[in-house]
């Protein structure tokens, strides 16, 4: 188990599923046995404004907020938001942008958040079983299959991540 705290930021625009993605992420990490904290600012989230959510995990996490310049991973659902959040990423941190997956392979744009989680999942110490269990719990029978497929597509995209200099 990783002792030090790992920092992840999920960012995008209101309505894109940022908070759904960070919710799944935090639950999967909790399921894998980590202390997890997730923080979000969502007051204006339904009005198309920027939405970000911080997820931190490790043996013990204190502050729920990722300090600027210390994010290990930045997962962005809207390409234009990459630059806005780049200052949050540490040197050598990983940026996962929407082009990390083949959007044509998704059954709809709605699954982009889960597909990008699939890309991120390769980097995280969480088993596939835990991820799928959380997805199943989150989506219920009618949309689980589409999201499972999106997640596994993202998980199979192997060389997408840009490292931040």
């Amino acid at each position, binding site marked *: 188990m990783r002792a030090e705290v790992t920092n992840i930021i999920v960012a995008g*625009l*209101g309505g894109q599923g940022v908070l759904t993605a960070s*919710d799944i992420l*935090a*639950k999967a990490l*909790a399921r894998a046995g980590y*202390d*997890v*904290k*997730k*923080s*979000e*600012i*969502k*007051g*204006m989230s*339904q*009005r*198309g*404004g*920027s939405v*970000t959510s911080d997820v931190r995990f490790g043996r013990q*996490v*204190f*502050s*729920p*907020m990722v*300090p*600027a310049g210390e994010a290990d991973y930045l997962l962005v659902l809207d390409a*234009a*938001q990459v*630059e*806005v*959040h780049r*200052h949050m990423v540490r040197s050598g941190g990983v940026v996962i942008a929407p082009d990390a997956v083949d959007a044509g392979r998704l059954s709809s744009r709605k699954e982009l958040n889960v597909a990008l989680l699939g890309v991120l999942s390769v980097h995280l110490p969480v088993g596939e079983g835990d991820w799928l269990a959380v997805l199943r719990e989150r989506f219920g029978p009618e949309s689980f299959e589409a999201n499972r497929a999106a997640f596994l597509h993202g998980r199979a995209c192997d060389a997408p991540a840009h490292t931040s200099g």
Partner: protein
Amino acid sequence: MLPKQLLSGDEAIALAAFHAGVMLGTGYPGTPSTEILEEFARLGGRAQWSPNEKVALEVALGAAFGGARALTTMKHVGLNVAADPLFTAAYTGVGGGLVIVSADDPGMASSQNEQDNRRYAVAAGVPMLEPSDSQEAYDFVFAAFELSERWRIPVLLRVTTRVCHSYTLVGPRLNDSAWHPGRFERDISGRVMIPANARPAHRRLRRKLAEMQEWNETCWLNTELGGSSELGIVTSGISFMHAREAAPEARILKLGFTHPLPLKRIAQFVRSVKRCVVVEEGDPYLVEALRAAGLNVEGKAEMYRFGELNVPRVRRILDGDTSPEPPAPAGKPPQLCDACPYRIVFKALRQRDCIVAGDIGCYTLGALPPFEAMDSCVCMGASLGVGLGLRHVLPTEEARRVVSVIGDSTFIHSGISGLVEMVYNPPEDGHVVIVLDNLTTAMTGHQEHPATGRALDHGPAHRIVIEDVVRALGVPSVHVVEPRAGSDQFERVLDQCLASRQLCVIIARRPCVLIVKRFRDQERRDCEQEAHAR
């Protein structure tokens, strides 16, 4: 112990309230407090939206007079509205248990100011607990009820955005049914606050506070974390989390019960370290109290009074670093939805160069480009009074362009009183009020209110018809229009009203585009139920 769950602070408060046997939860929606009652209702608790926070607190107070455990929730500015009952409820005390949640918003993620409601605990003379994560939010609800019942006093549970909206692991207690509701006991001299009763009540309150302060000196709600004696930190709430991370080597006194303060324990702590820094978000509440008690502690530089704290800012506070902070790049600001019916209203107001007294809600976004059609936004319901004041003093040509704009939920909250003022003290050239009625409390996430005809759980309730209220107050010119693309009806009515020199209310009614589908689903369910009932 039950398995751990990942809960937001709001959800943890709701779960604790449910487990603690709260019989009634009341409140008015407001970020970041809204989810508490929604979650409490989802769990099976009885929760109600009140028209405003004052009424919510009064209903909860009545329930507590009746021997129940009652919870009332609101955002920080909501406690301003509820301040009137709060101050005197501290005198009357309660029969059962009463916990008031004040959800503060330092940094103003979604608020018009960043007032620090810890000041209310001092001003009203009520005990205050401050949790720093969801587990504490859960545990402190039980502690708050125990305090409330032991000292028969309302307790303020003060949380902030980063406690309310952060998800952390919570190990709930096993459901224990140790608590049973009390009953109503007549106590005329204790609860009827005429001066003859209120004078001894005030003395009684101060005695209770002195007792609680003594009890707080050894209270489990305050904890000390060992560390070097070089640096000591006194802190509370979310600031504790940032401080613990920023200075893992420091000795920390984390206060959970922050009014009345355990000054002897704090003094002992301060004396045990070479340097002691108070790390707190917002106002210098703790540092002022500690210095007034003669303790030698450092506070934060004034620049850190503004906005939220975080780990880097706490590092700077501890280092005494007052160099300018790097500005964060601006994200994309929110805006009125593309198909929002209010767009038509603000475009029309802009075109006519109206002077717009605005209010609190989604429609406050009408102040931003491309509309820039709002000239003031102060607090819930202020559009009416501010618009009238402008009408009274501006030269006629300007006065006749003044319009008050208020949403449906805000109108119910505190717009009605402003309308009473309008018919009682009408401006010479009349006034024009636009009620933007999208049939929901949209900004906070689509909560119901008394004019939607639906209760907190979206089930049917009596519907207050806004135009009927307006007519009943004696407003001579009342119009209900649907602002929609391709129709100039709204503009025609607006022009007619602006020219009329009468008191006019225009209700611009069209459902919020984000919940049209929910309306349709709800209607279908209602029809099915009705058919089934037949």
